[in-house]
């Protein structure tokens, strides 16, 4: 895949009545290649939802810019789909009417067959009013609406949170199938890191409103090593997190050069990588999508 689906440059957002509140996002700079499936992870209040709402064009940056599909979020609106965390839909409409709304509002783009299949997989009565559905069923309708639009960029804020395991698997499968067939770029935030590990190929870790880690999943994992051994010197490697229990020393590091052979090494999982960074807010930033940015961030 070539091209950029989403790009932020020094993006910052501050809330508060006169824009004098706390920074929800600060100095966010990253680039997401088109065709990626990107996991946006981070603790509660880190700024994940704020970032997605900016990409969807629902919030205006206090400073910096966000570019999606080569243009402003407003100009790209027809080509992107966004599902907010609370899955807003019209409660008085039936499922059929909701899909018809999708059809009418997306002339020339709408794929009714895709939307109907997603609804049908959930065994939902098409005449049921949206207001009568459970949270997970509403999520299914929202995803049907979003995928029916055939977006080039799909922004999902905690999409899987209220789904049962079967629906989660089905809908993640539907998202991946869409990505495989149409090259759709998918950006989704979640707290459940383990379930994202197999689906995503790109990671954006946000902490305290800032980008902490960013890059292709494989590259990020390969840039880190979990080491265990007897207490010893870890210079010149970058130590993200380190613990000592008795004589045993455990650390997550970014190796700079060859490692001493006395260390036992394993590649971390995404979950281990994210947890180590969350426990160590002072670990240096690492962004891998662009070399020049990585250097800037380290400086």
């Amino acid at each position, binding site marked *: 895949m070539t091209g950029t689906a989403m790009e932020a440059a020094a993006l910052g957002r501050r809330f508060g009545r006169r824009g004098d509140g706390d920074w929800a996002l600060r100095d966010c700079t990253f680039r997401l290649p088109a065709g990626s499936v990107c996991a946006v992870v981070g603790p509660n209040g880190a700024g994940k939802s704020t970032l997605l709402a900016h990409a969807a064009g629902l919030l205006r940056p206090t400073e910096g810019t966000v570019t999606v599909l080569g243009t402003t979020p407003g100009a790209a609106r027809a080509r992107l789909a966004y599902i907010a965390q609370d899955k807003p839909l019209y409660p008085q409409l039936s499922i059929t009417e909701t899909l018809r709304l999708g059809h009418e509002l997306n002339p020339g783009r709408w794929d009714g067959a895709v939307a109907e299949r997603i609804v049908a997989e959930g065994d939902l009565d098409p005449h049921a009013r949206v207001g009568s559905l459970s949270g997970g069923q509403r999520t299914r309708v929202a995803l049907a609406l979003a995928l029916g639009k055939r977006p080039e960029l799909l922004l999902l804020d905690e999409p899987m949170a209220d789904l049962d395991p079967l629906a989660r698997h089905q809908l*993640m*499968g539907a998202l991946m199938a869409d990505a*495989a067939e149409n090259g759709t770029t998918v950006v989704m935030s979640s707290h459940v890191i383990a379930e994202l590990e197999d689906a995503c190929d790109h990671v954006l870790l946000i902490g305290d409103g800032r980008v902490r880690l960013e890059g292709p999943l494989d590259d990020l994992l390969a840039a880190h090593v979990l080491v265990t051994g007897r207490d010893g010197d870890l210079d010149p490697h970058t130590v993200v997190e380190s613990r000592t229990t008795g004589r045993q020393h455990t650390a997550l590091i970014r190796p700079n050069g060859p490692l001493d052979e006395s260390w036992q090494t394993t590649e971390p999982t995404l979950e281990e990588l994210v947890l180590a960074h969350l426990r160590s807010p002072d670990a240096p930033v690492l962004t891998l999508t662009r070399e020049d940015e990585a250097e800037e961030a380290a400086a």
Partner: protein
Amino acid sequence: MVEYRIDRRSGVATYVQIVQQTKQALRLGLLEPGDRLPTAREVVEATAINPNTVLKAYRELEREGLVEARRGLGTFVRKSLGTTPADSPLRAELDAWADRAREAGLEREDVAALFTAVLDEHFRDDHREGDEV
């Protein structure tokens, strides 16, 4: 056609699991030359994994000469692996051996350890194959 089963807790990279399961299907004769592998879309829809993972596995199988991608048609099996179809005499012997091991009071782990030890002895230079059981 073959169906992949992804074990998230196995510690084996997902694409390697697909490579291994494809080879296993080739060894058991579940896949034969000329058969089409499932498309990336079909695999990810069923397993909810990233499409690039499937493509990476298929590229690896292609690099090993086991399958070939035909543009617009799909990925096809080029050659089979090994000579041990599911109903071969070797399998029957192993089956009988496992029966005896069980009668002798061995636990599953004991049998696996024993089998792995013998395997390692006979296939010393070929650890990757040994790992694929």
